[in-house]
C-alpha cells in the first residue's frame, strides 16, 4: 500500500507542479472574463450543431467583412452539418484567382469547396489601410491564441462600455475592459437583430456572441469531438490494462513479499 501511495504522490506532484507553472503564465492587465458553460467544454463536450450553424451566419454576416478564416476550407463546413450543395453555393459566392489560362493570363473563377475561406484583404497593408491603421487578426486560431479563449472572446464581444470619465478614448478607438490596455480599434461588432438567423432564433447580442464563439472554437479545434471521444476510449482501456498489470505484478511478486 505504501508503494502505491508513493506512486500517487508522484503523480499528484507532477500534476500540481505543471498546473502551478502553467497558470503562472497568465499575464496582462485586462479584466478576467467570466466563466460560461459551453456545449464543447467538459470530458464529453460536443459542439451544439445549431449554434455552429448560427455562428457561421454571424461570422459570414458580421466578422468576415474584416477578419479572415484562412486555415478553414469551405469543405470543412460539411463536417458540421452543411450539405454538399449548401457548401458549393457558399464557396461560389467568392471569386478566387484561377490557374493561368492558355494565354497565360490569370482570371478569377468562383470558389469551390476545396478552397480555403477567402480573406477580406489581399495583404496586411490593405487590411490596415481599410481599418484606420489597425490589423484585424485572422480568426482561424483565435480561440487557441488567447488565454481562456472562448470565455475571453465571449466577454470581449459583449463587454463594450462607456469609458470612465478620466480615461481618454482617442478617435477610432473603443473602450473594452476585457481587452489588454482597454482600448480596442474594433467598433462594437454585434447589435441586436444584427443578423437574421435562418432558424428564427432571436438574435440578441448575447446569443450572437455565444454562437460565433462556438463556431470559432470549432474553426480552431475541428478535431475536438473526435479527440474527446477517442480520449474516453483510450483512458478506459488504459485503466483496465493498468488494473490487470497490477494484478499480474502482485502475483509475480507474491514470492518476494
Amino acid at each position, binding site marked *: 500500500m505504501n508503494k502505491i501511495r508513493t506512486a500517487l504522490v508522484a503523480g499528484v506532484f507532477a500534476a500540481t507542479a*505543471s498546473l502551478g*507553472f502553467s497558470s503562472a503564465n497568465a499575464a496582462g492587465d485586462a479584466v478576467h472574463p467570466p466563466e460560461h458553460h459551453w456545449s464543447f467544454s467538459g470530458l464529453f463536450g460536443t459542439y451544439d450543431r445549431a449554434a455552429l450553424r448560427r455562428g457561421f451566419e454571424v461570422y459570414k454576416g458580421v466578422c468576415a467583412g474584416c477578419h479572415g478564416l484562412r486555415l478553414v476550407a469551405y469543405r470543412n463546413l460539411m463536417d458540421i452539418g452543411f450539405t454538399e450543395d449548401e457548401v458549393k453555393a457558399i464557396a461560389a459566392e467568392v471569386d478566387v484567382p484561377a490557374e493561368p489560362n492558355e494565354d497565360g493570363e490569370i482570371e478569377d473563377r468562383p470558389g469551390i469547396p476545396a478552397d480555403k475561406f477567402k480573406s477580406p484583404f489581399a495583404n496586411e497593408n490593405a487590411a490596415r489601410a481599410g481599418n484606420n491603421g489597425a490589423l484585424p487578426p485572422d480568426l482561424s486560431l483565435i480561440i487557441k491564441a488567447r488565454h481562456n*479563449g472562448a470565455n475571453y472572446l465571449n466577454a470581449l464581444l459583449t463587454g463594450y462600455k462607456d469609458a470612465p470619465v478620466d480615461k481618454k478614448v482617442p478617435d477610432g478607438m473603443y473602450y473594452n475592459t476585457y481587452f489588454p490596455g482597454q482600448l480596442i480599434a474594433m467598433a462594437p461588432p454585434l447589435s441586436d437583430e444584427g443578423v437574421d438567423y435562418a432558424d428564427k432564433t432571436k438574435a440578441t447580442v448575447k446569443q450572437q456572441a455565444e454562437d460565433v464563439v462556438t463556431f470559432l472554437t470549432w474553426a480552431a479545434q475541428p*478535431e475536438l469531438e473526435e*479527440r474527446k471521444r477517442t480520449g474516453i476510449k483510450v483512458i478506459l482501456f*488504459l485503466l483496465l490494462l493498468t488494473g490487470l498489470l*497490477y494484478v499480474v505484478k502482485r502475483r509475480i511478486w507474491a514470492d518476494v513479499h
Partner: protein
Amino acid sequence: MAQFQKPGWLENGLVRWVDHRLPIFTFVSHELYEYPTPRNLNYWWNFGSLAGIILVIMIVTGITLAMHYTPHTAMAFDSVERIMRDVNYGWLIRYIHMNGASMFFIIVYIHMFRGLYFGSYKAPREILWMLGVVILLLMMATAFMGYVLPWGQMSFWGATVITNLFSAIPLVGDYIVTLLWGGFAVDNPTLARFFSLHYLMPFVIVGVVVMHIWALHVHGSNNPIGIDTKGEQDVIPFHPYYTVKDMFGLGVFLVFFSLFIFFAPDYLGHPDNYIEANPLSTPAHIVPEWYFLPFYAILRAVPANFIGEWSTAWMGFILIEAKLAGVLAMFGSIAVLFVLPWLDRSPVRSSRFRPMYKWFFWIFLIDCLVLGYVGAKPAEGVYIAIGRIATIWYFAHFLVIIPLLAKFEKTKDLPKSISEPVLGGGGGSASAAASKPMEKA
C-alpha cells in the same frame, strides 16, 4: 526465493546457432534474466524506464511529424496546422509529441530528484550520474529547438532571446550567434538548421542513454536504503519482477499523459504560439516552456553591474557583463550537478539515514519550484528579490550546505543488509524468511 535462471529459449537450436556467432541472446539473458536488482526498489525507481519509453515515443511521433512538416519560415506554421487539420490522426501525433516533451521533463526531473534523495550519484555511480546530466543538457537543447519549429510567436521570440545569450561570451560570442542564426537575425536559415539538429539530437541522446544504462549495469541500481547488496538474499532478477512493475507504472503514467493529450492538449503551452511568428511584433512577455522556467529565473536573477563591479575589482582587466554573468549562472546551475558527487562526501547515500540532509532536500525541491514560479513572472517588483534569494539558495545548497553536512551531520545507523529490513529484520535466517510467501500489507 527468486530464481536466477537462464531462459529456456537459450537452448533452442536456432537461437544457439545465432548466439554462437552474435551473442545477442546471451546478452539479453544476462542483462534481463540474470541481472541482479535490489529487491527493495520503490516506485520512484520506475522513472528511469519511463524516461526511456517516452524517448522512444518522442522519436516515433517526431519522425512521423517530420514527414508532413515544412521547415521554411513561410510554410512552417501552416504545415503544422495542416497536420492538425488534414493529416490522418495528425492532431493526435502532434499532441502526443508536444505534450510528450513536457512529460519527458516531468519524468526526468522526478528521476533526478530521486537520485538526489537516495544519493544515487555517489561512488561507484559518479559517471552514471554525470551521463545523466549530459542527457539533461541534450534534452534541453533538443526541446528548445523543437519549440522553434512551429514558428509561432513564442517560437520566434524564444529563439531570439536564447540565441542572443551566446553573444555574451567574450571575443567569439557574436561569431557564435551568427553561426547559430545562419545570418544576422533569426530567420529561415535558423529554422532549417534547428530542424536538422532537432532531428539529429534525439539519436545522440539514445547513444548517451545506452552508456547511461551500461554504467548502471556495472554496479546495478542503488536502492532506497542506499547500502550495497550483499548476496543472493538482497537481489531479484530484473525480469520478470521489474519488467512487470515497470509495465504497471507505465500504465499509470499513460493515463496521466492521456489526460493532457485528449482533454487539455494546449494546457502546458503558450497561446501566443498559435500566432504566426512576426519579427515586427514582440509579445508582451516572452516566457519559455515551463520546464525551463527555473533556469530562466536564474538567468534573470543576476543584477546588472553587480558581478561586473565585483569582477572588475578582483580581476582588474576582465569585465564581465551582467548578461554574461546571468548566462554563467544559468549554465553553472547545471554544471554544479556534474561535480555533485565530489561536493557530497558523506558516505551515507540514502536520506533515510541522513536526518538533516533530508530536510535540506525538501527545501531545495521547494526552492526549485519557487524558481519556476518566478521564471513565469515578469522580472519586476518582488519577483526580482524572490528570484535572487532562490538563486542564491540554489547554489548555496550545493556549494555550502552539502559539503558542510558531509562534515557535521550525524547520520543514523545503517542496516546490515537489504534483506534484513525488508523481511521484518531481527531474528531468523534471511533465506528461510524469504522462501515463505508473505501477504502484502
